[in-house]
């Protein structure tokens, strides 16, 4: 990679420090106008044939799976989801946790990487945030219909009802209602506010007509004046600062659903960090699964570079290893606790009738990302796609293992059943995959899939002192070092 070194002038310690040149985030020296053209082109030009080839089946699967499946469920009863079995939380809560987890990478990229000044996030944050919104929509379907009579789902909201019974605010299930709905709302606000300047860009490129009016309304009349940008940037910073603890809280609260119970295999304190790491892990795999093909189809290689992909692969490696640590620690604690029920729960997971799910979870989540230790694997898009798919599947199995194997062996042997999903449950799950893809394709079709304003901001000439620096032979290295020195001495 680019590793030209310059020697900085003397700093406060008198030692000469070599300054590594930063790798560029946008390749080929593209101009502002090129960035606008290329990103807006994705939604202004005719969609490639492949778009229709993906959209029509996805939309049909969503319609039949989610639309048809849920209509059948509502008109018949929740029994069609195989909930007469003792494993009430079987498939639907597995899917709920799976989808909620997918969303976490979006918030992580948009909020945590923003606060830590990781500028490479600008090329992928919009699509990842969109993924968050769509994943949470898919997630919400399962608990909403799982309650049985979905038309009474409003009982979850803290409003006085005819029975004068209030929600149990001490229950993790109600915490979950608040956590997930807050997460959805804040993610939506974050996504939308981040998009306003880009919608204005599209508005200004539209010919007069219905499109211009619609983009005009949604861009709120944005003008890009600095008196707007100043407040806007503060708002963005605040939302990032609010979303960071929020994203950590959401999956922690989801894990409380399990951890606050007294069920062997669930009652562990490691659950919140373990769930959060797993969520980020699974979410990044989904970002890669979607962005690697999209970058090819729309020719966005100069915007989403191999550096972005490399960084994401490293995060997958890190979080995958944390997840592996959590799996092993769970086993160790079960052994070390000396509690026979705890030990039996894990023996059942490893060697019981669900051994294959446990083996899939271990190999796909812990072993498959280990290839990312090697640079050659992080640079090969086929390897990356295969690992990302492995992780997607593996993370689904993780939730299946946690939920189904545990509930299949509760305290009463009379309850012992092996669980398998009903056809309608399967259909609904496949339907949500279709729904997710269809929504994402619609997003590519109608909204800017890369944050235009922020990507422009990462170009070198966007720095208001860029021209001054260019006038010097060393392109500002001396000034930069002097600035660093000033920073140090001002402390």
């Amino acid at each position, binding site marked *: 990679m680019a590793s030209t070194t310059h020697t900085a002038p003397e700093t406060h310690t008198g030692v000469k420090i070599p300054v590594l040149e930063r790798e560029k985030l946008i390749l080929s020296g593209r101009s502002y106008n090129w960035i606008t053209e290329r990103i807006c082109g994705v939604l202004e030009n005719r969609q490639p044939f492949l778009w229709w080839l993906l959209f029509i089946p996805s939309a049909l699967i969503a319609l039949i799976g989610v639309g048809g499946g849920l209509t059948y469920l509502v008109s018949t009863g929740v029994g069609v989801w195989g909930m007469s079995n003792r494993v009430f939380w079987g498939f639907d809560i597995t899917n709920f946790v799976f989808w909620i987890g997918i969303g976490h990478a979006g918030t992580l990229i948009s909020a945590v990487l923003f606060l830590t000044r990781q500028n490479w996030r600008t090329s992928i944050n919009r699509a990842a945030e969109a993924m968050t919104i769509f994943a949470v929509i898919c997630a919400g379907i399962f608990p909403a219909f799982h309650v049985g009579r979905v038309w009474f789902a409003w009982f979850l909201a803290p409003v006085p009802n005819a029975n004068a019974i209030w929600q149990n*605010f001490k229950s993790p299930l109600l915490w979950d209602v608040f956590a997930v709905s807050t997460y959805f709302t*804040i993610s939506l606000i974050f996504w939308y*506010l981040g998009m306003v300047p880009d919608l204005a860009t599209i508005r*200004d*490129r539209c010919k007069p007509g219905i499109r211009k009016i619609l983009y005009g309304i949604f861009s709120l009349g944005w003008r890009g004046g600095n008196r707007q940008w100043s407040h806007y940037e503060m708002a963005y910073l605040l939302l990032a600062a609010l979303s960071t603890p929020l994203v950590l809280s959401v999956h922690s609260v989801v894990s409380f659903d399990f951890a606050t119970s007294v069920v062997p295999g669930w009652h562990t304190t490691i659950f919140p960090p373990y769930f959060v790491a797993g969520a980020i892990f699974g979410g990044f795999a989904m970002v890669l699964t979607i962005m690697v093909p999209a970058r090819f189809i729309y020719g966005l290689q100069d915007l989403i570079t191999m550096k972005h992909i490399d960084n994401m692969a490293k995060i997958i490696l890190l979080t995958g290893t944390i997840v592996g640590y959590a799996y092993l620690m769970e086993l160790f604690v079960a052994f070390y606790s000396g509690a026979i029920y705890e030990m039996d729960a894990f023996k059942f997971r490893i060697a019981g009738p669900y051994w294959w799910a446990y083996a899939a979870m271990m190999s796909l989540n812990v072993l498959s990302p280990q290839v990312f230790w090697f640079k050659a694997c992080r640079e090969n898009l086929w390897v990356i796609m295969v690992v990302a798919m492995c992780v997607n599947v593996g993370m689904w199995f993780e939730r299946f293992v946690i939920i189904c194997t545990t509930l299949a062996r509760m305290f009463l042997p009379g309850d012992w059943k092996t669980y398998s999903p009903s056809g309608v449950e399967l259909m609904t799950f496949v339907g949500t995959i279709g729904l997710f893809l269809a929504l994402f394709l619609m997003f590519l079709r109608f909204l800017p899939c890369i944050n235009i304003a922020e990507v422009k901001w990462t170009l070198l000439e966007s720095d*208001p002192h860029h021209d001054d620096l260019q006038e010097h032979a060393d392109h500002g290295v001396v000034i930069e070092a002097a600035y660093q020195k000033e920073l140090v001495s001002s402390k």
Partner: protein
Amino acid sequence: MSTTRKRVYGYLAEFKSASALYKGAEKIRDAGFRKWDCYSPYPIHGLDGAMGMKRSILPWFVFFGGMTGTATAFALAYTTQVVIYPTVVQSKPVNIFTVPAFFPIMFELTILFSGFTVLFGLLGLIQLPRLNHPLFASDQFRKATDDGFFIAIEARDPKFTPNGTRDLLAEIGGANIELVEEED
């Protein structure tokens, strides 16, 4: 239409780069103008100082919005669980000692209310949404969301003079200087 009266909104001038915009802004600030703004396709860091603007007051709104959220959640949970309708579930207490169980919801509502305050506070501060703006009458202004850098000085600024302001903009490097008018 020829019968419409027009009112001058102000002067609009284009600058060639972010650096040029920054330097121009410093000069206009020093000339003592108040009703003017710099337009750019992305936020330029440091321009607030060059324009003599203060830090946004949005965090204060959000602080009080967030506190309202915390208080709302506490009041909602405590009133319903302890005061009006104490129900013993899982043998958890129904007095002040049950409050730790309300923390997750208090946290979530703090974030939720703060988020809404960010959204509506921002819209209030930047005075959006609005359907139109005099600057949209300018054809070149469309570049402000693509690759153009502009400064607009409004006619309602006390320092504004038709010739003096135009000369000032030309002097500091502004190109394509245009008199923007709005329909009265």
